[in-house]
């Protein structure tokens, strides 16, 4: 069974204070690892897909990296508008029909002035 664990559960940063969120996973044949951002009361918004160890993707202040066991979401010089819950999900090779994702419970990030 695919499993995803995210840490920390919650993170409070000062504006400009860089940090990283962790996503550890166990999966049978990784097809893809996904990062989403979710604002309170809204649906998740897609950020990145990573496919193989060593891959990196960037978008503004966010950078996602992937190893064989975990992924990191690095946030450089965050701003208050980066405050949100960040979700990690994996798609394994034994998912049957469709493309089922297994989600972690998320890291709730708050960036303060």
């Amino acid at each position, binding site marked *: 069974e695919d499993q995803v664990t995210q840490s920390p559960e919650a993170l409070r940063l000062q504006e400009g204070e860089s940090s990283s969120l962790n996503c550890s996973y166990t999966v049978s044949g990784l097809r*893809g690892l996904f990062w*989403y951002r979710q604002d309170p009361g809204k*649906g998740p918004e897609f950020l990145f897909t990573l496919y193989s160890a060593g891959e990196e993707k960037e978008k503004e202040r966010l950078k996602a990296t992937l190893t064989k066991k975990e992924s990191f979401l690095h946030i450089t010089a965050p701003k208050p508008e980066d405050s949100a819950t960040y979700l990690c999900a994996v*798609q394994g090779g034994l998912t049957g029909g469709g493309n089922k994702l297994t989600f972690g419970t998320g890291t709730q990030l708050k960036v303060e002035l």
Partner: protein
Amino acid sequence: DVKVTQSSRYLVKRTGEKVFLECVQDMDHENMFWYRQDPGLGLRLIYFSYDVKMKEKGDIPEGYSVSREKKERFSLILESASTNQTSMYLCASSTPTGKRGPPTQFFGPGTRLTVL
């Protein structure tokens, strides 16, 4: 631009009522999904569909059914709502695995359902 819409943002129903949640996508995606999201439990898959009139159970299908009569529309049905079905319901759609690259799932805004 990618768009998934859900019929209601907030819904309040009584125990025993039949509840319909509607989802529509305009991206011509084959796959559609229904999740529920609860604090501490993350997103859990209820049902998904990979084609019109096709459906497969997810991890927590008990108490739910689905309908997909048209490619763009996927409905979640609570036959007899119960208080433990109070939750945030999220619909998503995607292309099939291996078609046009990454099978990214795109989500709707969610429906916050309260069952009293």
